[in-house]
Structures are given as C-alpha cells and as structure tokens.
C-alpha cells in the first residue's frame, strides 16, 4: 500500500529484510518465514487484508483468502458482534493450525474506520450490504487501501461513478466481486461471441430475477448483539426486522437485497453477474445501452435494452445468458456452455483472434494485480458499467416508461424525473 508516510508496508519490510541479512548480518531480526525461506510467501510480498462485513458472503470470502497464497488476514469488522466474533475465530484458528501454536492476532472492530486507520493493512475486502459499498470503497481508497468489493457495486448509478473516481484518483487496485469473469465457461462463451462464431450478434436473453419487492416487515426488538443504527448507515432509518439481518444461526443469504433501501433485488444481485457477462461479450465494459423499455403488455412483453449497435437484450427465461447471432447461439452459465452448432463449444480460439482476460481464480487474480499494480479481470469501471445496466432496468420498472440513456454522459435523455433517480440522499452524518 501507499501509506501516508510515503513508504509502503511491503517496501519497508523488503528494505528491513535486505538490511538484516545482506548488510548488517543480523538474521535473527527477521524470521525465515518472513523471508519466504520456508516455502511461504515472504512478509515483504505478503498482502495484508482487512475484512469489512462478515456475514455469509463475507465469511465465504474470508475463508477463500485465508487459503490464498500470499495473503494474510489481519483484522475483521462487522456491526453484528456474533458475526464479528465468528470471523475472528475462523481467522485465529486458521493461523493457529498453520503455525502449530496459539494465535489470537486477528483484530476485530465494530467500526470500519478503525480498520481503515491501520497502516499495516494493505487492502480490504468489502462484503457489507449494498447500501454500504460506496462509503466503504471511497473511504478505503482515500487512505490508500486496495479493494475487493462484492457485487453489485453500488446502490445508485452516481455512487458507482463516484467510486470509480475515488479509485482512479488514488490509483488503487480494485476487483469487483462479479466472479463469473473468472470462470472459463463464461470466458469462452464471450470469446465465441466476440470472434463472430455465431455470426453477427443480434439478441441476448438474460435470466435474472426482478426488482426489489419491498415486502412489509414489522418492527422487532433490536437484538443486543447488533448495532442497528450502524447497520442502517446511510440508508433512511427504519425499524429493525430480523429478515434484514438474521441471527448468525440462520445460514442464509439475508433478504435485505429485496428492499429497495438496501439493495436492488435480483436485478442487481444476479444482474451484476449475468448482465456483466452480456456486456463482456458485447465489448461494452466502458459503455452501455441507449434505450431501456419496461414491459408494456403490448409490444414489449419483457424488460428490453437496446444498444447503439442494434443488439437487443431482454430479461427473460434463459439458463444464464443466451446469445443469439445470425449463424448460431451460445448459452453460458456456471458449469454450463451450450452452443449451436454444437461443435462450437470445442473451438480453440486462435492466436490471432480476440482473447479475453484470463483469470481462473477471482481472488488470486486480485492479489496478483496488487503485486503488479495492474487492473484485475473485473476492474471498477467494469463493475460500474455492469451495475448501471441493472439500475437502468430497475429505474425503467419503477417509472414504467421507456427511457433513453446516454452512456457517455451517463444521463437519461429528455427525462428529468429519471435523472433524479441517478443518486439518492444519505442519512446524516454519512456522505461519500
């Protein structure tokens, strides 16, 4: 990381190691494991991590990164004390197992700024509910942390752009958690489309759920292990209900995402995966559709996007993402690739054809990108553009009328009401 002192933690360790062994000759100051002589990654090359948000997905990510070579978890953060304690325990037990000695070194904080203030943490993994993503990412970028943030990137289109600006300003390495980009089924499917194996792409069918339903949730007593005010953060205040933040004993993905204050429904949850793949296949990682038409019961049975290229994309029944071209089809999903003609799925993309960024592990790809100071497979601009497609769909559903979109200026054309929905006000004192 680029610390505020100007010397990164890893630069400092590398220099200290060089001094200890090569010049002054005091090898006992730096352990062999710190130098990487026991087969582990040297401390100077190790990327130290903090975790913000330790619910079901955050815990899954924690376990993935604990097992990733070259990463070390230093601290965890959550507003739910039970989930925080679980995350600390998982981390401590992992390192105790690995070292064969007692370990209690994982820090635990209920306030994410405590974690961001630690100069010994290089990078953060953010897996909070969606309404917290923008604040977490922007504040992390401002203090020089590299960032892995769960998808969908943001709650609004304006937030996503502000996040991109912060990450670019402070030159951070950012991975959006749209991990289907690290699955070969999707990559090959997109490469087949990009290289014209199905002829000219005409139509895409994306199989995702709809916008948030905002089902009624009665008030319940806030449990003593949860800081409800902080869970709400920038969202407008509402009463607690366990459906939004269930007890740790319920091993489920919570339903906050189906409430529009905290998430964008399945449109953003699964859209940040499948619309993301559609955008990848179209080469639209820095652009988007120009028209969005909600179902009207007449000409448009389902939500329809139109691109300047003439390609149409609909939200309808598909096993993942179905691409239809003038000469064939490609359908791709997790562990699934179906083509017509059938032999297309066995095609080897030739050296002189378009090859998309190859990542086979989303987490390792991010760690490698941090070491190289390069963009990973799902850079923040990609995450921004993909979540924008999802938000555009939700806005069209909400307003129930066709909308025109300028993907360069990122504004609706000729619809002031729609432009109001690009951003939303935060509950005080929060801002991003």
């Amino acid at each position, binding site marked *: 990381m*680029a610390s505020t002192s100007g010397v990164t933690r890893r630069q400092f360790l590398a220099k200290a190691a060089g001094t200890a062994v090569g010049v002054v000759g005091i090898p006992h100051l730096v352990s062999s494991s710190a130098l990487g002589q026991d087969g582990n990654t040297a401390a100077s090359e190790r990327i130290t991590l903090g975790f913000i948000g330790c619910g079901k997905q955050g815990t899954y990510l924690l376990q993935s990164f604990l097992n990733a070579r070259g990463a070390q978890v230093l601290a965890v953060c959550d507003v739910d004390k039970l989930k925080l304690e679980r995350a600390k325990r998982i981390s401590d037990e992992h390192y105790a197992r690995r070292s064969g000695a007692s370990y209690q070194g994982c820090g635990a904080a209920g306030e994410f700024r405590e974690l961001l203030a630690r100069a010994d943490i290089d990078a953060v993994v953010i897996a909070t509910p969606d309404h917290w993503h923008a604040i977490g990412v922007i504040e992390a970028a401002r203090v020089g942390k590299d960032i892995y943030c769960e998808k969908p990137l943001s709650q609004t289109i304006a937030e996503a752009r502000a996040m991109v600006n912060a990450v670019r*300003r402070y030159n951070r390495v950012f991975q959006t958690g749209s991990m289907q980009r690290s699955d070969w089924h999707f990559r090959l499917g997109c490469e087949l489309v990009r290289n014209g194996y199905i002829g000219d792409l005409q139509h895409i069918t994306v199989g995702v759920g709809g916008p948030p339903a905002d089902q009624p949730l*009665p008030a319940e007593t806030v449990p003593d292990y949860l800081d409800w005010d902080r869970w709400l953060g920038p969202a407008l205040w509402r009463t607690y209900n366990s459906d939004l933040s269930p007890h740790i004993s319920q091993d489920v993905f919570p339903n906050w995402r189906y409430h529009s204050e905290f998430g964008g429904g399945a449109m953003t949850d699964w859209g940040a995966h499948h619309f993301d793949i559609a955008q990848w296949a179209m080469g639209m990682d820095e652009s988007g559709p120009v028209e969005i038409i909600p179902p009207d019961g007449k000409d448009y049975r389902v939500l329809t996007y139109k691109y300047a290229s003439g390609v149409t994309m609909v939200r309808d029944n598909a096993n993942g993402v179905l691409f239809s071209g003038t000469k064939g089809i490609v359908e791709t999903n997790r562990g699934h690739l179906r083509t017509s003609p059938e032999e297309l799925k066995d095609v080897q993309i030739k050296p002189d054809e378009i090859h998309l960024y190859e990542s086979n592990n989303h987490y390792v790809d991010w760690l490698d990108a941090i070491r190289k100071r390069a963009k990973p497979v799902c850079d923040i601009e990609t995450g921004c553009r993909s979540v924008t497609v999802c938000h555009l769909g939700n806005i069209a559903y909400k307003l129930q009328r066709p909308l025109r979109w300028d993907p360069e200026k990122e504004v609706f054309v000729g619809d002031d009401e729609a432009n109001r929905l690009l951003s*939303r006000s*935060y*509950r*005080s004192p929060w*801002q991003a």
Partner: protein
Amino acid sequence: MEQQIEALKTTYDWGQSRVPLTELSDHIRASFGNETELKNIRTALLSVLDSDAKYAAKQYVCRELSIIGNDDCVPALAKLLTDEKLSDMARYALERIPGPAVDKALLAALPRAEGKAKIGIVNTLGNRACRDAVSETAKLARSSDEALACAAVSALGKMGGAEAANALAQVADGVSEKVKPALYDARLTCADRMVAEGDRAGARKIYQSLTATGVPQLVRTAALRGMRDAVSSR
C-alpha cells in the same frame, strides 16, 4: 387516490400491507406528463406530511416527492429540515428537486439546524453543488465539531469554483488532523471540477500546492496525476 391518502394518514406503518402505497405509486407513474393531476397528487402527499401520519408513511411521501416534487413542495419539506427525526427524509426529497428554491430553503435552515441535521444540510448543499452556499459553508469548515468541519470541507470541494477553492486554501492551515484527510480530498475534488469546467490554471494552483512537502504521499501522487490529466485533457 383519496382512499390511499387516508390510509397513509391514519393506519400505514412498517409491516402493514403496502397495497395503498403501490396503488398510489402506480397512479403517480400513470400521471406522468399530466401536470394538473400531478399538482393534485403533490397537494395530497403534502397533506400527509402535515398530518399525524406515522414516520413510515411520511417517509413514503418523501420518496415520492423526491421524484415528482417541485417548488410548490419546498416550504412544507423545508419545515422538517431542522427536525432531527424528520430532517433526513426531508433532504431525501429536497436533494433531488432541482432549482434555486431548494437551495434557498436549505441555506435558510442551516443556521437554525443543529447536530446531525446541520451536517445533513451541509452534505446536501454539497451534493447539489450549490455555489451560493460557499461562504456559509466555509465558516463551518473551521468548526470545532470535527464531523461538521469534515462535512463542510467535503461540500466545498463538491461545490467547486474559484470561491470554494479559495475557501479551502484558507482553512488548510487551521484544521485538525482528523479533518485533514477530508480537506485534501476536497481540494482534489475541487481541482478536478475546475479542470472539467475549463479553469486549468486554477486547478493547477491547487494541484501544485498539494505536491508540497508535508502533504501525504498518497495525496501528492494524486495531485501529480491530476496535473498530468489536466494537461492531457486539453
């Protein structure tokens, strides 16, 4: 619509059926472009704010007014700005309503508001890039309340322009260590805005000052990058 408005005024709360809300929202969307009906709807929604309706009902009203609200709605919403409990939902609506009437209402409420309500108003003025608020916001940038000072410097950065740039430069030496990161970021935001608006000389002055010794390396590098991008965007 009368039935739905009545439900909002008298019975709706968290956990209860949202059918009246959905019906009302559908009616609002169907009235797009029908200014006469939209005026009726606004009047009806504002009457909920002025009633003993529960918090959840008033919040729903503010969400709808954030989309269809206009100058006519400003006085009723502005009354809530200094109410610590209702201020956030009033800003939720006001922040999205375009026009100077909202800016004036926010500025008028600012000296009377306290605590989080005051910080929220400053945040909203910043998000609206309200340049008429620069001098009032600059005073708050020197506040001993560090949360308020952080909000004020961030808002100045978003407001942008030469006056905000000067205000940020003037407070630079006087802020506490806790406010400094927000100040650096605000100055970079201000400079970026100046580049976008064509004032490269003004932006360059800010970037240059942020490359000085004593400024954190992260900020100095960002300032150098800003200078480079300003040149390349010519």
